[in-house]
C-alpha cells in the first residue's frame, strides 16, 4: 500500500499538466494525496496539517515550469518543506570542555536504549574516545546484565557497581550514577554513557527521577531514543520528555525495517531538537549519523532520486549529457562512441547497485531496487572493453560490424561473440527506445539523458 505514494502523486498531478499555473483548484487532489502520504508515514496529524498548509501557500501561484513536470515541482516543494522542518545539516555531537562528557539515554520501554548505548560507545571508540557505560536501570529484570554483555562484546569499560541489596528506587539509581561518574574520572574515561530504565512519559515518579539524574550529572547530551515505527503518539512522549529534561537530540532506532519513520518529523517539530543518529541493525556497528535528506525520500517513498539527480548534476559533464540526450532522442540516434562516453560518466556516479537503490520503487523503475543485488558490476567493464576493441568507424557506424568483425572484437576484448552480439542487440533496441521516448515526462527525459548508458548493463 505504501508503495503507491509516488504513483498517486503522479496521478494527482496529471490533471495539472498543460495548465500554466498552480491554483487553489488544481492542486487540491495533490494536497490530499500528500496529506494521506504523510499520515501513512506516521507523521503526526497536527504536523501534517501545518505542513500541508505551508506547501499549499508555497505552491499556489507558481508558474508550471517547463523544465519540471508539475508533479516534480510540487514534490520539490514538499521535499524542501520536510527538509526545512528536519534541519538541513547533520547534527553535531556535543563534548564537554572538561571530560568526562556525560550522555544520558532516555526513552520509553523497548525503544532500544541499552542496544543504542552499546552502539554509541562503539562509535565513540572508533572516534578515539574512551567511553564508560553504566546502567542505572534497577527495575527491569536483567537490564543491567544486558548492558554488561553488550559492553563486553565491544570491549568497552563498564561501571557495574554494587547494589548491596538495596531496594530498587531512585536513591539507588542516583548512587550508581554518582559512583559511575567518579569511576569514569578515576579510570581516565572521557565519556560516560548512562543507560536508564525505560519509562512512560506520564509516570510522575520515574520522570522526577530522570530530572534528578540530570541535575546530578549535568550531561552534555540528553538523547531521546525513539522507535522508528512509532505512530501518532510520538509527539506526546517526546514533548513530555523534552519538557522535563530539555533534550539535546534524538536517536531513531530500528531504521533497518520498512517503517517510513514519519515520527522523526513529529519529534523534531515538538522538541526542536535534531535527530543525531539512527540505528540500522543488531550489530554494534549498525549505527550512523542522521542525514535528513535520506529520511525525507523514505517518508515520501521516493527512493533517493533527488540526491541522485543532484549527484548526477554535480558529477556529470552537463553539456555532454545534454548533447547525448539531444542526439539520442533525435532521428539520428546515438552512436556506440556516445554510449561509451555515457558509460564512463555514469561510473563516476558510483556503483550501479548504489544508483539502482536510489531510484524510486514505483513507476518506470518498479522492481529495480530488488534487482540491485543481482547486478554484476563487471558487466560495465566488459561492455566498455567491447566498445574499446572496435575501430572508430565501427563505433560510429554499428551496421558495418559483420560476423568477422564481431569475432575480432570478442577476441580483442577478451569476451565472447555472444556477448558482443548481445551488446549490439541491446544497443539497437536502446536507440529505438530513446527515439520514441521523447514524449515521456521531463524527469524521465533527464534521467535518460544522464543515465542512458545504464541500459545494456544488465542481464
Amino acid at each position, binding site marked *: 500500500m505504501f508503495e503507491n505514494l509516488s504513483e498517486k502523486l503522479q496521478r494527482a498531478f496529471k490533471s495539472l*499538466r498543460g495548465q500554466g499555473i498552480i491554483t487553489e483548484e488544481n492542486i487540491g487532489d495533490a494536497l490530499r494525496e500528500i496529506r494521506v502520504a504523510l*499520515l*501513512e508515514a506516521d507523521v503526526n*496529524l497536527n504536523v501534517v496539517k501545518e505542513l500541508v498548509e505551508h506547501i499549499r501557500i508555497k505552491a499556489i501561484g507558481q508558474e508550471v515550469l517547463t523544465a519540471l513536470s508539475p508533479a516534480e515541482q510540487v514534490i520539490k516543494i514538499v521535499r524542501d518543506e520536510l527538509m526545512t522542518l528536519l534541519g538541513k545539516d547533520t547534527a553535531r555531537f556535543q563534548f564537554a570542555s572538561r571530560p568526562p562528557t556525560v550522555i544520558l539515554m532516555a526513552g520509553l520501554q523497548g525503544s532500544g536504549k541499552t*542496544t543504542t548505548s552499546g552502539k554509541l560507545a562503539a562509535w565513540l571508540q572508533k572516534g578515539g574516545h574512551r567511553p564508560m557505560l553504566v546502567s542505572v536501570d534497577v527495575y527491569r529484570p536483567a537490564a543491567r546484565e544486558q548492558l554488561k554483555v553488550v559492553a563486553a562484546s565491544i570491549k568497552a569499560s563498564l561501571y557495574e557497581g554494587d547494589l548491596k541489596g538495596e531496594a530498587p528506587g531512585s536513591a539507588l539509581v542516583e548512587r550508581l550514577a554518582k559512583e559511575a561518574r567518579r569511576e569514569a574520572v578515576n579510570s581516565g574515561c572521557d565519556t560516560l554513557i548512562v543507560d536508564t530504565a525505560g519509562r512512560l512519559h*506520564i509516570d510522575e515518579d520515574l520522570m522526577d527521577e530522570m530530572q534528578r539524574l540530570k541535575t546530578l550529572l549535568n550531561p552534555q547530551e540528553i538523547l531521546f531514543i525513539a522507535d522508528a515505527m512509532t505512530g501518532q503518539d510520538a509527539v506526546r512522549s517526546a514533548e513530555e520528555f523534552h519538557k522535563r529534561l530539555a533534550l539535546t537530540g534524538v536517536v531513531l532506532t530500528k531504521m533497518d525495517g520498512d517503517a517510513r519513520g514519519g515520527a522523526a518529523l513529529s519529534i523534531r517539530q515538538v522538541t526542536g531538537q535534531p535527530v543525531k543518529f539512527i540505528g540500522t541493525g543488531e550489530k554494534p556497528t549498525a549505527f550512523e549519523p542522521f542525514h535528513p535528506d535520506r529520511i525525507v525520500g523514505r517518508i515520501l517513498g521516493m527512493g533517493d532520486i533527488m540526491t541522485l539527480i543532484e549527484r548526477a548534476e554535480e558529477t556529470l559533464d552537463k553539456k555532454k549529457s545534454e548533447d547525448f540526450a539531444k542526439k539520442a532522442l533525435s532521428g539520428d540516434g546515438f552512436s556506440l562512441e556516445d554510449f561509451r562516453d555515457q558509460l564512463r560518466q555514469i561510473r563516476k556516479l558510483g556503483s550501479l547497485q548504489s544508483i539502482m537503490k536510489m531510484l524510486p520503487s514505483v513507476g518506470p523503475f518498479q522492481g*529495480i531496487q530488488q534487482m540491485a543485488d543481482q547486478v554484476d558490476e563487471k558487466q560495465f567493464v566488459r561492455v566498455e572493453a567491447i566498445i574499446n576493441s572496435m575501430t572508430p568507424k565501427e563505433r560510429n557506424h554499428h551496421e558495418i560490424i559483420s560476423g568477422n568483425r564481431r569475432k575480432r572484437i570478442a577476441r580483442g576484448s577478451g569476451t565472447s561473440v555472444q556477448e558482443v552480439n548481445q551488446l549490439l542487440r541491446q544497443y539497437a533496441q536502446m536507440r529505438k*527506445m530513446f527515439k520514441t521516448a521523447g514524449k515521456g515526462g521531463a524527469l524521465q527525459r533527464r534521467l535518460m539523458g544522464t543515465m542512458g548508458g545504464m541500459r545494456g548493463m544488465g542481464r
Partner: protein
Amino acid sequence: MIQTLFGSLDEPEKKSIFDRMKQAVSRTRENLEQRIEGIIALTREVDEATLEELEQSLIASDLGVTTTEEILTTLRDHAKRQRIRDGAELRQLLKTEIKAILDQQDRPIRAVSGPQIILLVGVNGTGKTTTAGKLAAVYRSQGKSVLLCAADTFRAAAIEQLEVWSQRSGVELIKSKQGGDPTAVLFDAVQVAKKRNFDVVIVDTAGRLHTKGGLMAELDKMRRITQRLIVDAPHEVLLVMDATTGQNGLQQARLFTESAGVTGIVLTKLDGTAKGGIAVAIARELNLPVRYVGVGEKIEDLLPFDSEAFAESLLGGG
C-alpha cells in the same frame, strides 16, 4: 533487468491528452458527487463537525487513513439509514462499528488434549519477554501447570530476564545459553512438556524485524519443529505489538502471519497515552483478534482484551 530499467521495450501504450483529461475529470466528478451526497445526508441528520472530529480521533489513535475512511463511509451509510440525529448518537454508532470489527475476529481458543504450545513473536522491544512472564502467571492462576521456554538466545540477557519472571510466577523454565540454537531449546521444552504432562508451554522468541528474511524463516522452522512433536501445535502464535506502533504495524502483522502463522495479538504498553488503533486495522485486514493487553510492569498487568473499553478509548472517551 534492462527491460525494467526504462520500462518495457515494447512501445508504451500512449494515452491521448483527451483520454487523460477524461480520466482526471471523471475522478474529480466522482469525488464531488460523493462529497455532495455525504454533505446532504449529514446536514440533514448529523453535523459534519462531529464527523470530522471523529475522523481526527481515529487517525490520532493510529487506525490509519485507509481504515478510518472505510469505517467512516460505513458509518455515514448507517447513519443515513438509522436516522441518526445528533453527534452523541453518531459517536455511539461508531463505537459499535469498531467493536464489531474487533469482535468478529474473536475465535475461541482451541481446546487441546496434550500440552498447549503458545509462541510469542514480534519485532524488537515490544515486550515479548515481559508478556511471557505475565502470561505464565495468568495460566498459573487458572490452576494450570506452565512451562516457560527461553527461545530468545540472541539478545543479551534475555534468558536471565525470563528467569526472573519464571521465579516471580513460580513456573519452571527451559533454557540454554546465549547464542544457542533457539529451535533446540524449543524442541527440548516441548518434549519435557509432553513427558511430564504440562498444560501450557509459553515460548519467548527473539525480537526480529519482519523485513529480515532469514530470521523470519527461523520462526517458520520453529513452528515446524513443534509440529513434529505435537501435530496441531503451535496452538497459539501471539504477535506482541507495542501500542505506540504506527502504520508499520500492519506490515508487521502481515509478514509475521506469513512466516509464523499468527493467531492473535497482544497489545502492550497500553498504560501510556498511545491508543493502539493499529489493532483495528489489523483486525479488519487480517482477521486477527486481540487476545490480551499489557497495562504495566507488574505481573498482574496483563488483561484479557475488552473491545468495548478499547473502542471507547479510541474515540477519546477513555
